[in-house]
């Protein structure tokens, strides 16, 4: 039996029996439950934005803007869901190259917003290439393993180009400097490599090297303000007015929410503007304060369900490409959520990572919804062959 990137399955395949799927067939296969969860999260995000901006009459446009962006991104997701896997596969390398060139563009021509250079303007378009790279990297890794991961090549060599694919753009992003995005890119890329079967001994060796290298990185790679943010993690009350301010105020907001919260739009911390960035990266504080442990745990669990669903979709794909692409996309989203909530809850240093679907921000919304589009596509085309 010749085996080229296709995973054997015992389930009877509709596609095999009836030939190509029509778009109508595809729509019939959309997992509506997953879509309901995504839509629910975005609607909840709109409500939280309403609450977080209600005391600033000038910001009243934000919630509706958020919702309109979600609708536009939703359409994009549905269109992407119908794109066949072979088109994704063909687009993988060009997308990666374009994203990489744009990242280089930021390095040389980027404009700064909030101290870091991460925006690139081309004509009327303004975006963060690092966001684009998240999806492109996922596709590129999946395409790479589809092509080169043979049953006989469980060795180390096959993974080295993959690691290069991950770290080259990550270093560029780190230079912007955008520590949060760089870490997300590295982490979700490594998850794909892990699933591609990198030897355990290599993983363990890498982990040990990481632990040894961490202090070195802490002192020589991180910038002063980043170090300050890490320090406040261990000793938050050392400088409650400086670096630890945001983190400390966020914890107070979350903690004072209690079991069932202070009620919608009733959060004193949020409404009194104690927390900077509360409509973007720190939106979770608003919902935790106003809906308490019940609300924040519910959001965390709904996100958990979405992520598990994504992994199930990955596992059921018949091709390596589909499987790795879905894993990459879902782990990117999972790291977003985990890093954001970990940072807001004072477990991780403050790095600028939004909470997908809930935080205000256009580029992140597009990235996440395009990622869901890819996952849905993998689901719909799970039985299609690539060769």
């Amino acid at each position, binding site marked *: 039996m010749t*085996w080229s990137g296709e*995973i*054997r399955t015992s389930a009877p395949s509709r596609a095999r029996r009836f030939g190509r799927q029509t778009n109508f067939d595809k729509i019939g296969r959309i997992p509506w439950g997953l879509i309901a969860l995504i839509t629910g999260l975005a609607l909840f995000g709109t409500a939280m934005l309403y609450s977080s901006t209600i*005391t*600033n*009459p*000038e*910001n009243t446009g934000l919630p509706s803007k958020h919702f309109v962006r979600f609708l536009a991104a939703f359409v994009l997701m549905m269109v992407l869901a119908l794109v066949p896997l072979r088109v994704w596969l063909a687009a993988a390398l060009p997308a990666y190259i374009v994203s990489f060139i744009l990242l280089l563009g930021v390095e040389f021509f980027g404009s700064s*917003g*909030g101290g870091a250079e991460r925006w690139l303007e081309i004509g009327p378009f303004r975006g963060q290439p690092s966001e684009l790279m998240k999806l492109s990297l996922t596709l590129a890794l999946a395409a790479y393993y589809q092509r080169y991961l043979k*049953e*006989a090549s*469980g060795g180390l060599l096959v993974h080295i180009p993959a690691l290069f694919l991950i770290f080259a753009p990550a270093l560029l992003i780190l230079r912007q400097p955008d520590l949060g995005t760089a870490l997300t890119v590295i982490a979700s890329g490594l*998850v794909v490599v*892990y*699933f591609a*079967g990198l030897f355990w001994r290599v993983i363990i060796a890498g982990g040990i090297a990481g632990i040894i290298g961490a202090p070195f990185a802490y002192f020589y790679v991180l910038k002063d303000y980043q170090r300050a943010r890490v320090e406040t993690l261990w000793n938050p009350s050392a400088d*409650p*007015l400086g670096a630890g*301010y945001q983190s400390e*105020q966020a*914890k*107070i*907001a*979350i*903690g*004072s*929410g*209690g*079991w069932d919260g202070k009620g919608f739009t009733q959060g*004193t*911390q949020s409404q*009194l*503007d*104690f927390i900077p960035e509360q409509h973007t990266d720190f939106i979770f504080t608003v919902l*935790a304060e106003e809906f*308490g*442990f019940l609300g*924040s*745990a519910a959001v*965390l*669990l709904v996100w*958990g369900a979405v*992520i*598990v669903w994504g*992994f199930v979709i990955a*596992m059921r794909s018949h091709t390596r490409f589909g499987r790795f692409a879905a894993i990459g996309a879902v782990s990117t989203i*999972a790291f977003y959520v*985990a890093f954001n*909530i*970990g940072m807001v*809850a*004072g*477990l991780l240093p403050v790095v600028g990572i939004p909470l997908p679907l809930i935080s205000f921000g256009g580029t992140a919304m597009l990235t996440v919804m395009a990622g869901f589009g890819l996952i849905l596509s993998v689901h719909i085309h799970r039985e299609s062959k690539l060769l």
Partner: protein
Amino acid sequence: MKIRDLELEFSRRTMMAAGAGGIVWGGLLARLFQLQVLESERYASLAAENRVKLELAPPRRGRILDRFGAELASHRSAGRVTVTRERAGDVGAVLSRISDLIDLSPERRDRILRDVARQPSFVPAVVANELTYEDFARMNIHAASLPGVEVEMASTRSYPRGRDFAHVLGYVARASERDLQRLTEGASLTERELVRRLFKHPDMRTGRSGIEYTAEEWLRGTVGRRRVVTNAAGRIIEELPSDDLAPTPGRDVSVTIDADLQRAAIERFQDESGAAVVLDIDSGDILALVSTPAYDPNDFVNGISQADYDVLRANDRSPLYHKAYDGLYPPGSTFKMVTATAALEAGVIDPNERITCNQQYWFGNRTWHCWKDGGHGPVNMHEAIKGSCDVYFYEVARRVGIERLAETSRKFGFGHRWDLGMTGGRSGVVPNDAWKRATFGEQWYEGETLNIGIGQGYLNSSPLHLAVMCARIAAEGRVIAPNLVGDGPNRGPRDIVDAPLDAEMMQRMKAGMFGVTSEWGGTARSSGDLGLGGPRLAGKTGTAQVRRITAAERRSGVLKGDQIDRKLRDHALFVAYAPADNPKYAAAVVVEHGEGGSRAAAPVARDILAHAIRNESGRTPTYQRSASNAAASTSRGAL
């Protein structure tokens, strides 16, 4: 078998990843449980007492200084009372308790209640500004028992020279929604938010007109933060040191005006309304830019009441209007040097040719009149300027034609909006055929050229135009551009009309202007002596007609000033430079409805110029000394 192994490995790794994910999610959930359930009480009390706040600290607005560093706009401290709805609860009740302590009119109370209702509940609203010492002390004693009430020393914009610089400096006011839109245009979301919050601070003001408006960013400075500890009621009980976050004050702006000369010029006008411009011929610096009467910009800083504003608007001497820069008047006979220059440039007249004036000039089927009863008789160019003979200039203007006349006027700067780097300014009108077709859809008639020749008709210009024209004559044709900002944004000169004027022709004009003030038959002989025992001035009178003299009135004798309503009386104009033999200053004076230029305007111009020469100190302007420092500094005054 290898395939099976990979599959098996994949399943195994999936399990492990699921386990890791479970641990992470479980960890997050546990953390939330810890914060929100186990330690909830601690954080709830922290939230209630959470009163270490970072507040926005407004930067101190830059000052505006005169030529020699005298303060024209600065700051002054004054007591202020504010109330915050969130802490006060019933604002109405608190206000009525305050009104037992200090004077608070019912209108004022309504306005405060309106302000309070409109703003977010945590933004303080101003109850009273500029408390007297007694009120301040009394409020301070009682503030502790008034919930949500703060009594503090605030820094207020102040204009120590009051009315003198109203139109030049403009004024500042609380930022309105329109101001905010303008100030945040093109800014990013966070910058916009920051600017909006900053301008909610009771100390913040934004420029509404004049230099305050155009130099807004330069003057504003950079916002800082203030760390404060507040008690449970929200009252600030302590301010923590926060030097690292301190705001950067705005930068000072220097104008070229000499505040003493400005004052002397305004005083000289007494009750008359009018405008005066004094230029330093050497540098083009504007030494005085007077428009009188004026309003007091201090009245606007805390918002002027509608009643007071209505009074200003109703005043028929238009104190709100910047007559020197925005006011347009027909230049009248002061324009005759331009007509003469145009004729010489066109070569249509020999300066020695005599034209006979019988007080009347016939053209087409109409008659034009000279102002002088009985006429001037035969006059050459010098005598025509000296005696301001209208007939001579009717004839000369006819020979030159409107197009060449318009072209020469533009060389003198007429029809051009001089950019002084401040708000306002008008170009005036230099009419020609194309202009008339565009404006009235009608061709130019040659008869209209005659009116332009004596500075009447459609022609009009601001006092600044007249001063620049006079300075260019005095400098014998050298290019001069007026300059108002010595140090600051829009530092001048901002623009230059680079048109050559022939030095020999200008010497001829100067001789004529000297004749006006110093020779037998000159129209302003009585004003020629500066009273300084030597130096004289040279100038030219002018009268800007406000009403039309009908043929019937001409027959029965033209009415004199006191026979007609003030509003219909002619404007008196005078342009001059001094000293006549070595010109340093050029001036233009307009006395509105002052009748004759020689009687009303010339003495004013003479006294202003005499003051300028008498008080000459040889001091260099401060901004020239600091210019090198300013160039070295790279920090911008933007927020």
